[in-house]
């Protein structure tokens, strides 16, 4: 219970700091405050897909269904956080570029990512046998993750994009944020990561209970 109360206070402080501190980018104005939520949510999505990739490899190595369940949970949460990143990105796009969706390389790449992981769940629901479903979806999750760094980090930097590319690190790969903004940003990253860990554990426990119920 203690760490949950800490998380509540921590994230509340992050939210307060995000709105009370000066905007992170003066040219973009107050809309740039979304940076404190949009980037951590996108980071958690990448972390979730990475976990799904690792659990899928472990399933194929050991053939333990528990790893497949963990991979599925990670992917589901990854998809949720990608949707949150897309929504927060669209709000930012509306206030700075005038429309919610512009088919910018960053928006197109996140849309492809949504399709890729949407297909993962379509595949899972299409196969009835547990072992076959686990094997096929593990192979798919490994292939899907190969596209993640390319779609998240490479495509938006290779093509001309409206999306700010130097919000976190500049062209010399150095952080150029004032200390207060950097601390709030890192605190938000940590807070969202713990929120993900909590949600992951919770869903795992629910899945275990559901499996037990089915056996009964």
């Amino acid at each position, binding site marked *: 219970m203690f760490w*949950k109360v800490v*998380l*509540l206070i921590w*994230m*509340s402080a992050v*939210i*307060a700091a*995000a*709105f*009370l501190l000066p905007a992170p980018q003066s040219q973009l104005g*107050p809309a740039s*405050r979304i940076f404190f*939520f949009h980037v951590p949510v996108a980071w958690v999505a990448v972390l979730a897909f990475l976990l799904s990739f690792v659990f899928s490899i472990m399933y194929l190595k050991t053939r333990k269904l528990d790893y497949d369940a963990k991979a599925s949970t990670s992917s589901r949460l990854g998809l949720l956080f990608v949707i949150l990143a897309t929504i927060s990105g669209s709000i930012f796009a509306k206030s700075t570029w005038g429309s919610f969706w512009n088919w910018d390389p960053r928006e197109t790449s996140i849309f492809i990512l949504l399709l890729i992981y949407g297909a993962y769940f379509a595949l899972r629901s299409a196969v009835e046998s547990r072992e076959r479903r686990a094997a096929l979806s593990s192979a798919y999750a490994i292939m899907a993750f190969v596209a993640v760094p390319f779609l998240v980090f490479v495509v938006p930097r290779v093509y001309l994009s409206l999306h700010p590319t130097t919000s976190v690190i500049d062209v010399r790969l150095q952080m150029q944020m004032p200390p207060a903004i950097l601390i709030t940003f890192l605190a938000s990253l940590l807070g969202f990561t713990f929120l993900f860990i*909590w*949600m992951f554990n*919770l869903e795992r*426990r*629910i899945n275990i*209970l559901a499996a*037990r119920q089915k056996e009964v």
Partner: protein
Amino acid sequence: MSSNLTAMIVTLIIWIGVFLYLLRLDRKVSRLEKNSKHA
């Protein structure tokens, strides 16, 4: 009230709502786990 403050209050309300939902779910799951252990 400035728009910044309004946005902060709305975000805080959403966060507290999400937190309370997760906490309630966590407690329900713990109770079910206890019950299934005793069963």
